[in-house]
């Protein structure tokens, strides 16, 4: 494998995705409006302690924004017949997927950083541990952008079908990840189930970075997110290769 050519191709795919898919309605709806409405529904007017629940809200926003671009790209390209041409360019399935992941991660990173910066100003939230916070933003966005790309793997050339499926997968995760009920008060089976969600580790990492109150521990959180990136990216490569011919 020629790494310089591999990365050159991946970065070109990222730029293409940013130009085309950031402004698509499903990205706007599932990546921006959806987490905003969830925040309004669960947090507003309930007198919740903001500093305690804010890390969960930020993790949820990052989760939805970073995973909203990936599911759209491959089905959209298969529908518009551009996917086959993309495969014939000096790219591999791996470099296309890396380009898709980077596009999703950058989108999630920029939006969640903007929300975090605005929250700092408006609610006078603590800055916390900058190293852990940076790691949480970067690993979190890459993890969930990888999940988004994995969700694009079904052999469908109908973007709405894949977006529906991705919502079916993503929505339950927010209820078992310590966003609405903090991990510190979860116990027994509920806590065990929460460990199955990758979002749990990001919520805990943000809790550790902002409030110094991580339940699982930052090192374990970072390790878990890293493993999730590898699993999601490898899964995306495997399934997209397997379903390559379908929808061409």
């Amino acid at each position, binding site marked *: 494998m020629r790494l310089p050519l*591999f990365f050159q191709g991946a970065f070109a795919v990222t730029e293409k995705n940013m*130009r085309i898919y950031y402004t698509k309605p499903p990205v706007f709806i599932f990546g921006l409006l959806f987490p905003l409405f969830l925040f309004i529904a669960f947090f507003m007017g309930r007198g919740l302690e903001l500093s305690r629940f804010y890390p969960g809200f930020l993790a949820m926003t990052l989760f939805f924004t970073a995973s909203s671009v990936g599911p759209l790209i491959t089905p959209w390209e298969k529908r518009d017949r551009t996917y086959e*041409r993309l495969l014939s*360019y000096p790219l591999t399935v791996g470099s296309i997927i890396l380009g898709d992941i980077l596009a999703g991660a950058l989108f999630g990173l920029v939006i969640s950083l903007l929300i975090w910066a605005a929250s700092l100003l408006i609610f006078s939230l603590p800055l916390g541990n900058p190293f852990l916070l940076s790691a949480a933003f970067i690993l979190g966005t890459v993890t969930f952008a990888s999940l988004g790309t994995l969700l694009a793997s079904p052999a469908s050339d109908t973007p709405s079908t894949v977006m529906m499926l991705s919502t079916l997968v993503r929505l339950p995760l927010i209820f078992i990840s310590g966003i609405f009920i903090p991990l510190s008060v979860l116990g027994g089976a509920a806590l065990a189930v929460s460990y199955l969600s990758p979002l749990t580790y990001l919520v805990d990492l943000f809790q550790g970075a902002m409030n110094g109150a991580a339940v699982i521990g930052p090192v374990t959180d970072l390790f878990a997110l890293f493993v999730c990136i590898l699993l999601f990216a490898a899964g995306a490569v495997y399934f997209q290769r397997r379903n390559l011919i379908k929808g061409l």
Partner: protein
Amino acid sequence: MPAIEAHHLTRRFGTITAVDDLTLSVDAREIFGFLGPNGAGKTTTIRLMTGVLTPDEGTVQITGIDLRTDPLRAKRCMGIIPENSAVYGDLSAIQNLVLAGRLYGLSTVDRNRRARSLLADLGLADRADEKVRTFSKGMKQRVSIGCAIIHEPAVLFLDEPTAGLDVQSRRLVTAMILRMHEQGTTVFLTTHNIEEANALCTRIGIINRGVLVATDRPEVLKQTFDTTQSIEISFARQVDPLMFSHPNLLRIEQRGDKFRIVTDNPDQVVKYLASWADREGVRIASLNTLGPSLEEAFLAITGGS
């Protein structure tokens, strides 16, 4: 060194063998036509040769570079014009070409310069900054051509490049193929249009049911299957072809106001048609005898009727 070399290419989809042990070599600077009926394996072959699909068995080399072991470098030597123009509707014409240039590894200066120059050549200079989704099919195909040749590839693959295009766009595509060929590019052309293949190609390969059944120069293929000839005749008024009856008359096809009559003895059939027209009082508007055609060779090879 051949520009394209495929050795024992095989690709199966479940129990179906789409391409079966295909071996093919295309010399540098050739225009190679690849013909076959629907479902014969043309598209699968082109996908295997362009790295879209990987073969179950066999190898492909582009200008001596193995597509399996060094796909990124091999793909940089080729340009692909797919059947459906396959360009990004949400990008402008210039953005599509610049993106292609970037994917082929051109520097920023080179890709911007080449993109502007190509759009002028393709007659799209005044629409360069408009989104491609507003373009006609012919204009999209021109953008697609620009994307395929922005890096001046050594090998150009075209999959049905003129299908569904108007006359102007078809001529422009044909002129572009010939110009690329003059500049030293090897062209691999898949087409249903036998006349187009006959006019453009230096050599032709015919695939049927996944197997390459013939490869030769068009004139040689025609002579090989020189068992029949055709007569093209039209009358001053409408006639019923069922009225023609002669033992050397093998087949009649109606083409507009003309009949193409396939025969193994043109002399006898021309005499018969002239006497029939005289007897029936019908004036012959035109009469031509045609040599063996590539279409006949194609039908003979693929077993079509």
